C-alpha cells in the first residue's frame, strides 16, 4: 500500500522528484568517484612503494666525495640503517637535449640528470612497475617530460654538448617514486651502464651525488640525519625525507578529490533545499488530507512514514544509479594515478570502500527528511482548514505603501514587496543562487590565482619581470660574476638583485644541528609579502617561511632568535618576518647578505630583474638563455606554472565542470520553484487579472522578484566565495606552506563574466517560467 502512495506522489510531483533524484545522484557520483580515487591512490601508492623501495633519507651533494667515509658511517649505524646506496647523477642542461625536429628541453625549471638503475633500492620503474633495465642506445624518460612534450616510445632524443653527441631511442617511461611530481625540481633519465660510462668520460655532465639511506623497521631518521651532519659527511645540497616523496606524489590527486568532495557536499545541500521545497509544496496540497488522517486517529508516525518512504526510495535509486555511474566517471579522475603511480588499477577494495559514499548519502538524506517532517507534528486539524494563513500578510512586517514607491513601476515594486513579505519562501531560491555562484566563482578564483604572476607570493618570490637561476655546475661562480657584470651594463635592465642560496647548519629545538637552506641577498629590491613582520633589512636578521616557523619546523616567532653556524662561527639571528613558500617542501629562510655565503655548500644563485618599460621581455629571455646555456631563464608566470604542473590543468577541468553543474542546478531549481510559486499563487493571480492587469504585467511582478533574488544571491555568492573560499583554500594549503591565500580577482571574470553567465541563463529560465499560461476561464479560480 505504501508503495502505491509513493508512486502516486512520484507522479504528482514529477519535476521536483526528478530534480531531487538528479541532485542526489550527482552527489553520489562525485562522492563515490572521489572516495574510489583516494582509495585507489592509497592502494597503488603502497604497491608502487613496495616495488620502488624509496629511500628514507636522501642527501644531495655536489663537490668532493668519498664513499669510504659513508660506508664507515653506515656500518657504525647499522642498528638504524638497513641499506645505503649512492647514485651518481650526471646533470645535463635542458638546452642540450634535443628531440623531434629542432626542439630542446631548454626553459624547463627541472634539473635533468642521467643515471643508471640502482642495485639495492630506490628503483626507477617502467609503466608496469617493473625495474627498468635499459639496453645500450636506449633511454627511459621521466613521465613528466613524456607528457609535457608528447613523447612516444620509439622516439629519439639526442644529447649534444661540446664534443659529445649521442642519440638515444626512448624505450620506456620512467616512473620515479622519488621524483615523479612537478613539485620535485629534479628528474632522472635512466640509461644503460655502458652509455653512462661513455658520457661520464667525455660527456657534458656535471656530477652530483644522491646519497641514500634505507632504514630498518625501527630505524630513526632524525638520529641518522643528525649523526650524519655531525660527522661532517658530504651534505652540500638539499636533503629530503621519505615522507616528502609520498606527499608530492599524492598532492595533486588529493587536491582534486577535496574539491570534488566539496562540490558533492554542496550538491547534497541543494538536494536538501529541493526536498524542503517539494515538501512545503506538497504538504500545502495535502494539508486537508493530513488533517483528516489525524482526525481519523492515524498516528503521526504513520503519516510521516508515507512521506519518508518516498525519499527512502529516491535515495536508494540515486545511490544505486550514482554508484554504477561512478564506475565510469572514476576513469576520468584516475588518469593521473594511472600514469604516475600504477597502470594496473584492477582490484576491488576501492569499489567496496567507495560504497561508503552512497550509504552515507542515504543516511544523511533520511535523517534530514525526518527533521523536515517534524513539521507534520505541528499541523493541527484546525490549521489544516485555514491554509496558507501562515505566510501571507504577516503582522508586524514592515509595510511598503504604494504611495512611497518613487523609483519603480508598480509591477516591479509589487514583485520586490512579495520577496520581502514571503522571504521564507524565496529563501530557498536565494540560497541556491548563492551556492551556485560559489561553485562557479571558487574554482575560477583558484585557477586565476594559480595562473597569475602574483602566485609567486606563495613561492617566496617577490614580483619581478624575469629571473635567472644558476644551478650547480663547475662554472657556477664564474658564470655568476660574468652575469652580474653584463646586467650592470645592460641598459634595458631597470634593476636587478642577486641571491645566493646555501646550506647552513642551524640549531633546532633540541639543541642539535640540522642543515637548512638560507637564501641571502637584498630583499628590499624585490620585496615579498610578509604574513607577519618584514624582510631581513639589517645585519643579523633573518625571515622564515611559514612551514619553517611552524611547530614542526623551528617553532619560532617574529622576534625570536635563530642560531646559525657560518664559517665555523655561531651567529645569532633575529627573526624579522614570516612569509609563505610552498617550494622546497615549504621550509626555507631568507637572511641579510651580511650573514655571508657558506662557500662550501652553495646550492644555487638566483638573479631577479625588472626591465625598463617597453623592453621586449621574451627577446631578453632568449638572449640570456643563449648566453648562459646552463642557466634557467624564466618569467615568473612560467616559473610558477611549471612548478604547479598538472594541478593547473586539473583545476581547469574543475572550473568548467563547476560552471556546468551550477548552471544546470540554477536553471532546474528556478524552473521548479517558479512552477510551484505560480500554482500556489493561482488565486492571487486571478484577482489581479480580474482587476484588469494583463498577463504581461503579472509576469513582470514575478520576474522582478526572482531577478532581484538572483542578483542579490549572485552578489552575496561572489563575496562569500571570496571570503570563505580564501579561508578554505588557505586551510588546505597551510600544510604545504601557504597559510593565507589571497585570491587574485580578474574583476571582469568574477564580477562580470560569471555573474553574467548565471544571470542570462537563469534570467532566461525565469522569463520562460514566468509566462503565466492561463488560457482557463477566470471563474474556475474565482467562483465561490
Amino acid at each position, binding site marked *: 500500500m505504501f508503495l502505491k502512495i509513493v508512486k502516486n506522489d512520484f507522479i504528482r510531483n514529477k519535476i521536483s522528484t526528478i530534480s531531487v533524484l538528479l541532485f542526489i545522484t550527482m552527489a553520489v557520483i562525485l562522492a563515490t568517484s572521489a572516495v574510489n580515487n583516494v582509495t585507489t591512490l592509497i592502494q597503488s601508492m603502497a604497491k608502487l612503494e613496495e616495488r620502488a623501495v624509496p629511500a628514507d633519507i636522501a642527501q644531495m651533494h655536489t663537490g668532493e666525495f668519498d664513499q669510504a667515509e659513508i660506508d664507515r658511517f653506515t656500518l657504525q649505524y647499522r642498528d638504524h640503517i638497513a641499506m645505503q646506496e649512492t647514485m651518481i647523477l650526471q646533470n645535463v642542461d635542458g638546452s642540450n637535449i634535443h628531440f623531434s625536429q629542432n626542439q630542446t628541453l631548454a626553459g624547463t625549471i627541472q634539473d635533468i640528470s642521467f643515471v643508471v638503475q640502482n642495485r639495492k633500492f630506490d628503483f626507477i620503474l617502467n609503466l608496469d612497475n617493473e625495474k627498468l633495465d635499459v639496453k645500450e642506445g636506449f633511454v627511459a624518460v621521466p613521465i613528466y617530460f613524456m607528457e609535457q612534450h608528447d613523447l612516444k616510445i620509439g622516439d629519439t632524443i639526442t644529447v649534444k654538448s661540446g664534443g659529445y653527441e649521442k642519440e638515444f631511442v626512448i624505450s620506456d617511461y620512467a616512473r620515479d617514486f622519488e621524483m615523479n611530481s612537478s613539485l620535485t625540481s629534479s628528474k632522472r633519465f635512466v640509461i644503460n651502464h655502458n652509455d653512462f660510462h661513455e658520457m661520464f668520460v667525455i660527456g657534458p655532465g656535471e656530477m652530483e651525488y644522491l646519497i641514500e639511506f634505507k632504514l630498518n623497521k625501527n630505524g630513526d631518521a632524525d638520529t641518522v640525519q643528525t649523526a650524519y651532519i655531525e660527522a661532517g659527511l658530504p651534505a652540500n645540497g638539499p636533503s629530503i625525507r621519505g615522507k616528502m616523496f609520498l606527499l608530492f606524489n599524492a598532492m595533486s590527486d588529493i587536491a582534486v578529490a577535496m574539491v570534488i568532495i566539496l562540490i558533492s557536499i554542496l550538491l547534497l545541500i541543494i538536494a536538501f533545499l529541493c526536498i524542503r521545497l517539494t515538501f512545503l509544496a506538497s504538504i500545502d496540497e495535502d494539508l486537508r488530507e493530513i488533517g483528516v488522517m489525524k482526525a481519523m486517529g492515524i498516528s503521526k508516525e504513520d503519516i510521516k512514514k508515507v512521506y519518508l518512504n518516498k525519499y527512502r526510495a529516491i535515495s536508494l535509486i540515486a545511490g544505486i544509479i550514482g554508484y554504477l555511474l561512478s564506475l565510469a566517471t572514476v576513469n576520468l579522475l584516475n588518469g593521473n594515478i594511472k600514469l604516475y603511480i600504477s597502470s594496473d588499477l584492477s582490484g576491488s577494495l576501492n569499489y567496496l570502500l567507495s560504497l561508503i559514499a552512497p550509504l552515507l548519502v542515504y543516511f544523511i538524506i533520511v535523517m534530514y527528511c525526518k527533521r523536515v517532517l517534524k513539521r507534520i507534528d505541528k499541523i493541527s486539524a484546525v490549521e489544516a482548514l485555514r491554509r496558507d*494563513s501562515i505566510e*501571507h*500578510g504577516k*503582522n508586524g512586517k514592515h*509595510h511598503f*505603501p*504604494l*504611495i512611497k514607491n518613487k523609483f519603480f*513601476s*508598480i*509591477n516591479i515594486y*509589487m514583485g520586490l*514587496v*512579495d520577496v520581502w*513579505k514571503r522571504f521564507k519562501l524565496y529563501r530557498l531560491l536565494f540560497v541556491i543562487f548563492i551556492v551556485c555562484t560559489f561553485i562557479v566563482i571558487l574554482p575560477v578564483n583558484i585557477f586565476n590565482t594559480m595562473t597569475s604572476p602574483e602566485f609567486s607570493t606563495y613561492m617566496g618570490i617577490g614580483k619581478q619581470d624575469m629571473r635567472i637561476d644558476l644551478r650547480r655546475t663547475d662554472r657556477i661562480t664564474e658564470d655568476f660574476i660574468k652575469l652580474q657584470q653584463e646586467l650592470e651594463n645592460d641598459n634595458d635592465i631597470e634593476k636587478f638583485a642577486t641571491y645566493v642560496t646555501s646550506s647552513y647548519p642551524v640549531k633546532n629545538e633540541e639543541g642539535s644541528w640540522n642543515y637548512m637552506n638560507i637564501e641571502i641577498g637584498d630583499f628590499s629590491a624585490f620585496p615579498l609579502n610578509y604574513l607577519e613582520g618584514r624582510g631581513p633589512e639589517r645585519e643579523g636578521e633573518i625571515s622564515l617561511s611559514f612551514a619553517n616557523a611552524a611547530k614542526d619546523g623551528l617553532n619560532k616567532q617574529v622576534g625570536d632568535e635563530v642560531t646559525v653556524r657560518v664559517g665555523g662561527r655561531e651567529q645569532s639571528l633575529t627573526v624579522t618576518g614570516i612569509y609563505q613558500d610552498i617550494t622546497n617542501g615549504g621550509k626555507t629562510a631568507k637572511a641579510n647578505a651580511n650573514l655571508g655565503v657558506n662557500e662550501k655548500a652553495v646550492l644555487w644563485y638566483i638573479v631577479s630583474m625588472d626591465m625598463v618599460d617597453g623592453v621586449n621581455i621574451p627577446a631578453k629571455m632568449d638572449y640570456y638563455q643563449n648566453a648562459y646555456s646552463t642557466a634557467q631563464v624564466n618569467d615568473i608566470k612560467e616559473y610558477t606554472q611549471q612548478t604547479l604542473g598538472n594541478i593547473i590543468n586539473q583545476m581547469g577541468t574543475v572550473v568548467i565542470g563547476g560552471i556546468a553543474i551550477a548552471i544546470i542546478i540554477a536553471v532546474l531549481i528556478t524552473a521548479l520553484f517558479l512552477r510551484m510559486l505560480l500554482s500556489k499563487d493561482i*488565486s*492571487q493571480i486571478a*484577482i*489581479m*487579472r*480580474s*482587476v*484588469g*492587469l*494583463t*498577463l*504581461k*504585467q503579472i509576469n513582470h511582478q514575478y520576474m522582478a522578484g526572482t531577478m532581484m533574488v538572483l542578483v542579490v544571491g549572485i552578489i552575496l555568492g561572489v563575496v562569500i566565495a571570496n571570503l570563505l573560499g580564501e579561508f578554505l583554500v588557505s586551510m588546505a594549503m597551510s600544510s604545504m606552506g601557504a597559510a593565507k591565500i589571497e585570491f587574485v580577482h580578474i574583476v571582469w571574470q568574477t564580477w562580470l563574466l560569471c555573474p553574467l553567465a548565471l544571470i542570462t541563463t537563469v534570467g532566461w529560465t525565469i522569463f520562460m517560467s514566468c509566462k503565466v499560461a492561463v488560457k482557463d*476561464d*477566470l*471563474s474556475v479560480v*474565482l*467562483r*465561490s
Partner: protein
Amino acid sequence: MTYIIEARNMNKKVMLGKGHEIHILKDVNLEIEEGEFVSVMGASGSGKTTLLYNISGMDRLTSGSVKFNGREIGSLKEEELAKIRLKSMGFIFHDINLLKNLSLIDNIMFPALVSTEANKNSVNHKAKKLMKMTGIDKLANHNINQGSGGQLQRAGICRALINDPDIIFGDEPTGALDSKSTEEIMSILGEINKSGTTIMLVTHDVKVAAKTERILFMVDGNIVSHKKMRKYDAQQNDSREREEDLLKWLVENGF
C-alpha cells in the same frame, strides 16, 4: 435607449473529463440599460455566476455574442479585455478577494496605479474619499486580515469604484455578511447607482434583490422571466412591500 450590455444566444459548455460535456448557459439573451440596477436570482447551480463571468469577459463563451458599450468583446485580445476590465468594469466578489501583500488602502488604489498616467496624489485622495464614504477610513493602513468581513467588502467596493467604471458586477457580495452589514452595503450600492453607475448583482437574498429595479430569474441555464420595479428610494419607506411583492413573484416562478 442605449444598452451597456447586449448579449445574444449565449452558450457555455464545459468539458468534464473525457467526452463528458455539460451545458451551463443555454441560448441566453440579455440587455442591460445604462444606469440600470439589475439583480439575478435562481437556485444554486442554475448558472448565475457563469452568466456574470461571461458577460464581463472574464470567461470565454462557447458561442454567442456579448456587446459591451456596443463593442463585441468575444473577439478582443486578452490585453484589450484587461484594459476594459481595468477602466470600465468593477467587480465585487463573495470571497472579497483582496491582495494579501497590500494594505487596505493600497488594495483600493492598486487598479488606479497600474495605468502609467496615474497621478499618485490624486489617486490617494480619491481612495481616501471613497473610504470615508464607505466608513472605513480609519483602517487605511491595516492588513487585510485585520478587518471584519463587512469592512473588507467595503474595501472591495472602493476598489471596484476607484477607476470610475461604467458598470459594477457583484457575485453574491453580501452572501457572507450579517444583515446589518448587508443593509449598509446595499445603501452604498444604491448611492453609487444613483450617481449613474450601472450595477448587476447575483444574489440569493430577497432583501437585497428588492432594492434593485429589475430582477432576472434563472432556471437551469435559462433566464425564464424578468420583474421590473421602480428604482428603490429609501425615503419612501416601501422596502417591506417591495420584498413581499418580489417574494410572491418568485414563488409563482417556482423559487
